[in-house]
């Protein structure tokens, strides 16, 4: 089964990339854009078939390597 790990900069951590994207979108004429945050999604193909176990495994991977919890938060979905 697949697990999707979404890694985002933590609130309070400067995200210049998100800021630049927001600025560019406004420049292109899109109105009403508030804060923009840029993160990443890591797609994992897992042999595990039990969604609960797969999610736990992916969370462990995120804590250990995929996210740096000093600056990033993560969430995992499976399916």
């Amino acid at each position, binding site marked *: 089964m697949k697990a999707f790990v979404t890694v985002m900069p933590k609130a*309070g*951590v*400067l995200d*210049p*990339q998100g800021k*630049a994207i927001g600025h560019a979108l406004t420049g292109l004429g899109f109105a009403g854009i508030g804060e923009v945050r840029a993160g990443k999604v890591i797609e994992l193909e897992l042999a595990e078939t039990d969604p609960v176990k797969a999610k736990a495994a992916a969370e462990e991977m995120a804590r*250990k*390597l*995929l996210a*740096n919890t*000093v*600056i990033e938060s993560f969430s995992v979905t499976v399916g």
Partner: protein
Amino acid sequence: MKAAIILFPGTNRERDMALALQRATGHRPPLLWHRDTELPAGLDLVVLPGGFSYGDYLRCGAMAAQSPIMRAVKEFAARGGHVLGVCNGFQMLAEAGLLPGALLRNASLRFLSMDCHMRVERADTPFTGRFQRGQVFRATMAHGDGNYFADAATLDRLEGEGLVALRYATPQGEVTAAANRNGSARNIAGLLSPNLRVLGLMPHPENQVDPEIDGTDGLPLFESLAESFAAA
């Protein structure tokens, strides 16, 4: 001084570092492979050099920080060993938890390759003994992710404990926003561990060690290390 440089896949400033150490100590340090699980006996200094370990993929230094030899480096540091991490090496130290905080993308979102100036915040460490406190020296910086970040409480603690070794400054020694090209918190360029034996810094003093190439501004850092171990 017995030093060794660790080579990760994608490391690219190991030869610069070896030349700098050779200039300060008279002999060329060995290169250790990242898959090794032990450090050679009797080592004084481990150096994590600059480069793009694992292509800077995922996060700079993140995968190198998980490599087999880093376990040995952590143990070495815990036993009071000296560790120098430059550029990608600083990123690894932060990712491995040997220094607090993280190195984010430069505020300009561009790779920065230029000279910077750093003010020496304390000269009573094994890395800075040959400098004067407040002295300013020039070094090359070459990084895309050198923007030092830590939360306010951590920054206050680092300042309080005197663990900021180097700050970006003007050539005259003023700590200004303009001198802080990558956007680092409180102009932090180099950071020490509480026992003052681990130093991480983003710029490359190893590129300023030879009068025929680009001056010797960075040489005192390596001479300081050589001197502390010669005296010991």
